[in-house]
């Protein structure tokens, strides 16, 4: 009897083990978060996917609490209101240091102190859009100088009258943090869409790369119109374009990416810029900051910067007003053109 029991025990274990094997990938969790002025969608896989997804939400909410311009208690608001902040946390300092680097490397095309100008256009949220007078812009442009943001130990300070907006780097920084969350929770794969920022972590459940479409800037209303599709594994990609947040006045269209040099929406001949880079420390923030800056700089300067870049390598997809899609060499074999858009495709090196 004893032996029979033991055999029965074993058999049952084996049977149940074989019959009910489920892939851990089937466990998956998707959450939507409205934060940082955008809608975020995060999908995590693996056995700990629900916990990981909620940890992602906490991370984002925590960042937003520190970086929000609208929350009067945030570190950024306190810095903006007082001009100095004595007890800043390392997180904000780290973002400001990165912002300073990209400001310098892009010749001021990326500048977090452009905030007062952006606010004058109404793109900082609130009362709706308007075209500021040239006089007003001239006055506000004098406040724009990314190098006036200083840090000394824990103390941060702005130039007189300055204010900062981290909207063009915060989501990329958040994407960097999510990589840390994914690693902590041993998420085998995941996809995070943070309003124009995509973190493609690992590969798809079927083992192929994540397929990320680049919206056709000429058809912003058609969600199935792509300038092309990127195949990404363990990568960040960020697109900046002027086709989604805009308003029209007297028949002219004004979009939300303000050139710190002119105070006007950037008019560089590009309709969208996509920056992609592999996952490494700080590369999410880099992609975010560069996508804005290169959109302002235009095709020629953008490609120049790409050729002479000495930091973490990145690749580009530029869509131009005259109907071309320019793909940099390193991305060419991971980029599929979408012929229906009528674009001429070029690969540059």
């Amino acid at each position, binding site marked *: 009897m004893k032996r029979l029991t033991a055999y029965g025990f074993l058999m049952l274990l084996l049977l149940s083990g074989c019959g009910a094997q489920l892939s851990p990938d089937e466990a998956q969790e998707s959450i939507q978060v409205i934060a940082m002025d955008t809608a975020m969608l995060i999908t995590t896989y693996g056995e700990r996917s629900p916990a990981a997804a909620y940890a992602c939400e906490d991370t984002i909410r925590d960042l937003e609490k520190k970086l929000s311009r609208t929350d009067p208690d945030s570190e950024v608001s306190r810095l903006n209101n007082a001009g100095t902040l004595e007890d800043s946390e390392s997180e904000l300092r780290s973002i400001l240091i990165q912002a300073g680097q990209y400001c310098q490397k892009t010749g001021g095309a990326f500048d977090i102190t452009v905030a007062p100008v952006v606010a004058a256009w109404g793109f900082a949220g609130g009362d709706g*859009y308007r075209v500021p007078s040239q006089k007003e812009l001239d006055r506000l442009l004098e406040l724009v100088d990314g190098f006036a943001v200083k840090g000394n130990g824990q103390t941060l300070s702005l130039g007189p009258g300055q204010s900062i907006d981290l909207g063009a780097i915060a989501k990329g920084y958040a994407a960097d943090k999510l990589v840390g969350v994914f690693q902590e929770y041993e998420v085998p794969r995941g996809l995070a869409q943070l309003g*124009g920022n995509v973190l493609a972590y690992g590969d798809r459940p079927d083992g192929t790369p994540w397929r990320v479409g680049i919206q056709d800037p000429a058809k912003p209303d058609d969600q199935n119109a792509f300038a092309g599709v990127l195949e990404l594994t363990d990568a960040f990609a960020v697109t900046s374009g002027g086709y989604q947040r805009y308003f029209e006045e007297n028949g002219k269209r004004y979009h939300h990416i303000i050139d710190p040099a002119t105070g006007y929406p950037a008019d560089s001949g590009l309709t969208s810029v996509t920056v992609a880079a592999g996952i490494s420390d700080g590369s999410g923030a880099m992609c975010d900051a560069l996508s804005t800056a290169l959109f302002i700089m235009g095709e020629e300067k953008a490609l120049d910067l790409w050729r002479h870049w000495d930091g973490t390598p990145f690749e580009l997809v530029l869509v131009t007003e005259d109907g071309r899609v320019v793909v940099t060499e390193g991305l060419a074999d991971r980029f599929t053109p979408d012929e229906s858009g009528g674009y001429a495709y070029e690969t540059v090196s």
Partner: protein
Amino acid sequence: MPMRPSPKLRPTAWDALVVLCVAALAIGLAVFQWRGGTQESLTAVVSVDGEEIDRVSLERAAGKRTYQAGAYTLTVEYAAGSARVLSSDCPTQDCVHTGIITRSGQSIVCLPARIIIRLEGGAAKDGGVDAVLG
């Protein structure tokens, strides 16, 4: 203390009936889920601040519905297989600019109202994309 009936210690034919009932329940549930999983039609899920407030099947046109959230009112038009925001009194109009969505995974977002309209279910995303940049 009354004597309790001593339990039967050898399996009986009635035990098989219990096993059959449980097995039938398991198989029935599995079949139900499997059918539901593959044949689930395209559905628009409307949420405010992450909280689901409406769910509209897009198998056939479902007309217009209005949603109020925060201080704003959105009118959404549901056609067979697609959804779009017809009008909104939000200041940014981003949701109206988003246009028509037709595929599972696509969404329309109205930030001022904190409304997300997202499509779920429908045909597998063959040839489609997992995420959209822009």
